[in-house]
């Protein structure tokens, strides 16, 4: 079964998405900040990482920078989501794209499209 790692500091969002994806038949693990996310990546070796970009402490961008700096020994797909709150939210996503993300989404997000992207990336 495909393993997905969710990194988002908004617990409500994270938990709901987890439930949704599990309902769709994926195995999901959650991290609530960038630091936790990074350690789970190395430990759990997920097939797909869905990360929020703006978070306290080590934010999503830094997760991407870190992965770029020290490439993983296993293949992983990455989807980046931005809070979209900032006027320069899109700019963040542009930057994320520069870091080899496979898809980028903006909140509020249409889950159908996310599912489509996940399915495409994992098959």
């Amino acid at each position, binding site marked *: 079964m495909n393993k997905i790692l969710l990194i988002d500091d*908004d617990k*409500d*969002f994270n938990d*709901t*998405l987890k439930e949704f994806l599990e309902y769709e038949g994926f195995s999901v693990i959650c991290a609530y900040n960038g630091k936790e996310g990074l350690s789970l990546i190395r430990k759990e070796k997920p097939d797909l990482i869905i990360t929020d970009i703006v978070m306290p402490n080590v934010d999503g961008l830094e997760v991407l920078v870190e992965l770029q700096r020290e490439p993983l020994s296993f293949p992983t797909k990455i989807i980046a989501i931005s809070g*979209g709150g900032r006027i320069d939210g899109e700019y963040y996503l542009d930057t994320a794209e520069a870091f080899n993300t496979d898809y980028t989404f903006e909140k*509020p997000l249409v889950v159908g499209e996310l599912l489509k992207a996940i399915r495409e990336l994992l098959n």
Partner: protein
Amino acid sequence: MKIYQKLLLGFILISLLVLLVGSISIFSDDQISNDISQLVNSSLKEAEGAAKMNYALQKTQLNAQRLLSERLREIVEPAEAASAIVAATRANMEIHKAIVDFEKWLIKGREATNQGVVLAGKAGEKDQVKEEKEDLLILNNIGLQFTEYKAALSQFIVLTKEDLDDADEWLKDVVNPLLINVTQRVHSYQEDTEGELHAEAGEIREAAEGNTKIMLTTTAIALCMALILGLSSAHAITKPLVDLKIAVTAIGAGKLDTRLVVNSNDEIGVLLDSFNNMAKDIESANSELKNSQHQLLQTAKLASIGEISAGLAHELNQPLGTIGMIAEFATKLLDDSNFDRDNFRQKMQKITTQVDRATRIITHLKIFSRKEEHESEEKDINWIIEESLVLLKEPLKLCDISLDIELGDRLPKIICNYIQIDQVLINLIKNAQDSFDNFDNFDNSYNKLITVRSYEKNETICIDVEDNGSGMSESVVDRVFDPFFTTKPVGKGAGLGMSISYGIVKEHKGILSVTTREGKGTLFTVALPMKELT
């Protein structure tokens, strides 16, 4: 009437009184000296006349003796008869003359005394009348005695022509005793007049004493009037001044509708009038100021909203995103062949929770930006803190700033205008956030931290907002509460946050204080009184 006119009038009145006292004393002095000279003149004249008359009468005795001896010589020595007759005739003439003179004096004296009685009667001086009447009686007595003497003397002169022995005897036995009688009476009259002189001198002394009394009384009255005048004008000046002082104090204490009653048009009246005008001006200026302060407050509030709106969009996006996701999920559940009712209900509840979350943000923003003044109400300070953080958590997160919240347990509620306290907290936390902006004094591992605390201390509820950011230099902290003071670039800070917060806390009878160390961080403390507030 003007005050200087009042004073002038007072002084004029006093001067007039002094003038009156002076002229009374001069007048009565004059009277006294007149009295004295008159008295001395008349008394001296009378005494002199009496003495003269006595002397003249005594001389008649000598002349009578001479007449007798010349008669004798005429008889005894006929050779000298001619010269003796001449001498006797001369003596006779002198006697006659003395008698006439005495009668004249007597008549004059009577007339004068009579007149004295009339004058004294008119003047109503009873004592004087009595004295003059006594004098008249004496003079009449003298006149009677004198008539007797005169008759005896005439008899003597007749006798000298008939029988010298008889004449001699008559002279010795009848005439001389009668003469002594008259002279004694005249003498006593003379003494009487002198006595009168003494008595009148006493009267004059009395009059002088009375005069002194009048002078003293008028002086005392003048003094009293001066005192009354002085007191009343002093009161007229000080009373309104005291009122003015009270009114000024009242205005100072904020009772701006204080007015004074003006009931004179003197200098003080003018002063009170201008005080009232000033108070009116202050009142209207104050209400204008309040108005513009209110507007400023509103502007600053909107500015803070602008500052936090970036985070706000993100904050709203979260629940919206979650809601969308749950909705899609729920739709999926409906399509499921074995529809799980409970799971569906759970999803719907989750949506409600998220809607609440979004509503809370919107409500907060709406209340915050509303223009009407909010009433003070009883609020839990921790609730206010949580409420203000609704809009701030996200921006802090975006800036990588950790937020530490240490809320005190079971704090008593405070009465406050919570929208305003909310605004103070937002200003403080925004400033704390900004304090990390140009603070590159730390490496990547530096933990940017803002701590918000609530606790009870000395009958006050305190809220700390502490940061470990840039801190402030002395010159900055000195002006931190000044309106329009900012160290931030144009567009970022208006320099109003702290001055408005200071005003709000002060209005709540609280204290906003600050301690800071440059390069280390800053601690702002809001201390609010536990009970009481308008």
